[in-house]
């Protein structure tokens, strides 16, 4: 079942970050195995010595390119980086990152909101990487962001979803797609996020730094679909005690002599 962000529609609910792959070849195989239709890129100084073009690889894979503002610590730098990306790639979509601390890479709430407002006013489709604070998520939505992308845990930490309660609140209140961004370490994290009602999952390191990136990409594809299907299917409630799955009626009397 397709889902919409801004003016685009996607069949795959898995968004792939392209950072951390040992080479473009491994990345290409992982992108294909993941079934992702959108992938992020970062903006960096041109390096004449670099070989191969990530854009070609993503084009060949039919992936929509989503530039990010990774590495920015202020609203101003993030806004400029988004505009440079628009200039370079001809897209007005941006994954907005404003980092508050380079050890945890957690977002800077004030500058993030300020940058979001500026970029929305400038016509961008803004997908902000945010903390799991439901209030900040709502402010970003109020600012006109096309989606909110709360973290499960810090970028690259692989700890999964540290605060399911906050993620639930965010999903409950959101009128735009909620995409879990950052923290996914393995397939079950992605399944869980989808079961909790996220519209999609964005991940990079979990795949790019796995021992076998293509295999993990395949796992993530399955995991996201599994979680989406499970939510649609309507899970059974949790029960404190057991409930027999075999009928209580028609049980034979096999003890002889009967006690």
């Amino acid at each position, binding site marked *: 079942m397709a889902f919409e962000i801004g003016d685009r529609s996607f069949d795959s609910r898995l968004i792939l*970050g*392209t*950072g*951390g*792959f040992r080479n*473009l070849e491994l*990345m290409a195989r992982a992108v294909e195995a993941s079934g992702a239709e959108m992938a*992020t*890129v*970062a*903006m*960096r*100084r*041109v*390096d*004449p010595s*670099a070989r191969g*073009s*990530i*854009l070609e690889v993503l084009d060949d894979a039919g992936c929509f*390119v*989503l*530039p*990010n503002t*990774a590495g920015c610590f202020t609203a*101003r730098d993030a806004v*400029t980086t988004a*505009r*440079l*990306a*628009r*200039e*370079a*790639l001809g897209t007005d979509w941006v*994954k907005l*990152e404003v980092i508050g601390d380079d050890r945890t890479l957690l977002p800077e709430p004030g500058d993030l909101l300020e940058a979001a407002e500026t970029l929305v006013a400038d016509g961008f489709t803004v997908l902000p990487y945010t903390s799991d604070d439901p209030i900040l998520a709502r402010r970003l939505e109020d600012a006109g962001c096309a989606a909110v992308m709360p973290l499960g845990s810090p970028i690259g930490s692989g700890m999964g979803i540290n605060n399911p309660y906050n993620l639930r609140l965010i999903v409950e209140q959101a009128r735009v797609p909620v995409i879990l961004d950052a923290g996914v370490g393995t397939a079950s994290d992605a399944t869980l996020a989808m079961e909790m009602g996220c519209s999609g999952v964005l991940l*990079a390191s979990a795949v790019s730094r796995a021992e076998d990136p293509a295999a993990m990409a395949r796992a993530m594809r399955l995991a996201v679909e599994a979680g989406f299907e499970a939510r649609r299917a309507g899970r059974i409630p949790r029960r404190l005690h057991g409930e027999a799955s075999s009928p209580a009626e028609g049980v034979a009397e096999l003890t002889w002599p009967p006690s």
Partner: protein
Amino acid sequence: MTMVSINGERRDLPGEATVETAVREAGVEREGRGVAVAVDGEVVPRGQWSGTALREGQQVEVLHAVQGG
């Protein structure tokens, strides 16, 4: 000669140097697809590269997309 910083390195460019000149200096081939430029923190659209002169001491950033995020 005009001394500017291109992607963090000081470079001496011939007089009349423009953003176009700096982009070439940065190692970008002709049409410069997928590249964007900021001078002193302001974006310079591709259309204005050849028409924008560089002044002594300006800071030119020439960026493109790489693996990330």
